[in-house]
């Protein structure tokens, strides 16, 4: 396979599977949703398909150094449609939680602020008392390899599809019962001025009660497998890079590298994880500095392609 520089599924070593993203697929039941599939060929049944849905719940805000009044939180749950020993659900869940937490922390509202900055997190409802929590549920429908990338992309697409309530329609908290009240749709919102701060909302002018969030940090992943061929004498020919490995290829890899870059600035690396794999090829294959530079170039090109698909 490696000598002919093509794979069992007909792809080249540096060729990704076709990525399709459908947003709003569960619009009746969830605030945001997306279905991602990595498919090699339209005629083939085998594909990696992940469904992600975002629902909202109101709870205590999370106070941090950057957001002293509090901010909303994100909670990720992963499950598989059928039992699959090749996927470690708890590890995948922890990886998604770690990555999406930063994405949500940097989120901004899709509105215009004027006057002095009194910047609250877009998920904050009542400072230090109530905030919106995002519950992301990920379902692995089919696994044909590279589940980590597909799951993260599904979560990102679902978050971009999520609509959260506008805060400027008057939110009040009844502290006795713990209930939060929004003004109903069509309410004639008057622009409020508290001290020197004036805020007005684009969505109130359109009569909308919900809007989407903007993400200054857009984490886009790429996973590459490294296969070390011990029989080759030349050091460079000993290493073979396979992008977007399938489930059969994942078992053979010496090392799996996952790099997450910022879609708005692809030269900035947000996450870098790699460790030796449990492949049949049980030799140690360490990475060199030029290997990491090569992975960064591949990640940058892939991020630009994924951003075009997400924004389209």
């Amino acid at each position, binding site marked *: 396979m490696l000598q002919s520089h093509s794979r069992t599924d007909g792809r080249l070593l540096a060729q990704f599977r076709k990525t399709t993203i459908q947003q709003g697929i569960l619009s009746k039941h969830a605030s945001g949703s997306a279905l991602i599939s990595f498919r090699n060929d339209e005629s083939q049944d085998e594909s990696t398909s992940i469904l992600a849905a975002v629902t909202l719940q109101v709870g205590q805000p999370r106070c941090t*150094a950057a957001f002293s009044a509090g901010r909303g939180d994100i909670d990720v749950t992963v499950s598989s449609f059928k039992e699959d020993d090749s996927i470690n659900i708890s590890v995948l869940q*922890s990886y998604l939680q770690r990555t999406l937490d930063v994405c949500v922390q940097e989120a901004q509202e899709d509105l215009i602020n004027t006057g002095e900055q009194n910047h609250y997190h877009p998920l904050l409802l009542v400072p230090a008392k109530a905030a919106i929590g995002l519950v992301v549920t990920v379902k692995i429908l089919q696994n044909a390899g590279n589940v980590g990338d597909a799951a993260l992309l599904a979560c990102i697409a679902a978050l971009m599809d999520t609509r959260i309530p506008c805060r400027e329609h008057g939110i009040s908290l009844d502290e006795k019962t713990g209930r939060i009240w929004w003004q109903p749709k069509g309410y004639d919102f008057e622009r409020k001025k508290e001290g020197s701060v004036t805020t007005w909302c684009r969505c109130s002018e359109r009569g909308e009660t919900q809007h989407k969030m903007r993400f200054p940090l857009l984490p886009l992943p790429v996973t590459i497998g490294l296969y070390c061929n011990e029989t080759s004498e030349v050091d460079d020919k000993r290493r073979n890079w396979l992008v977007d490995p399938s489930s059969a290829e994942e078992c053979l890899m010496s090392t799996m590298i996952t790099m997450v870059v910022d879609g708005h600035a692809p030269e900035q690396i947000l996450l870098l*994880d790699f460790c*030796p794999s449990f492949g049949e090829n049980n030799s140690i294959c*360490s*990475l060199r*500095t030029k290997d990491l530079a090569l992975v960064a170039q591949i990640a940058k090109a892939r991020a630009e392609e994924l951003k075009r698909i997400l924004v389209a």
Partner: protein
Amino acid sequence: MTEARPDGRSANSLRPLSCELGCLQAADGSALWKAGNTHVLAAVHGPIAPRIAMEEHAEAFRIQVVIQTSSSNCSEWEAFLTRILTSCCCTQLYPRCILSITIHVLSHDGSILAAALHAAVSALMDAGIEMRTLPVGVTCLLLNPDILLDPTQVEEDESASLMLVLENSDADQILACYSSSSLNQSIHNILKCSVVAARVSQAISAFWRIAVESKVKRQCETIFS
């Protein structure tokens, strides 16, 4: 110019290290690793026959790592350490066996994953498990333009950290890498970490030699006293 760190260290210095081998009598191998106020205890049991036949591997022994800590990333750390230790040990020497490594975090003050790796490797050495290479972990905190090594918990709360595992203390042989949170760094800055980490990892390898030599010396004194 780099500001002084809260504990007075320079950017490239590690916290004081301490390693006690064979501290648990009931385990086949054990080690108590201390790096400043981060204390980690590792115990190795095995190689033994697994209780469940399905856990057997016909040609090599399997390693199971369990980390007892309150961190939410526990499962990721267990999988990460399992893969590193499996690749570094000569697993073909004990086929159809299982090697269980339990790691307790006694005191948490930053750079936990590196301390857990060092404690596990020390416990494996104490148990007499043959290894192909000694993996050395170095945690780097990226604060543009400085790189701080072996950060404390206070420093890790302020910025993202990156743990590099090097093979043979060589900057060009990076065995594994784990980033705690959003790095938001260029590849150039990340590669600088490997150069800085390689220099420090030689000190950790030398420290391991001292720890093993002191254990052997203590045992000889006990036998011949």
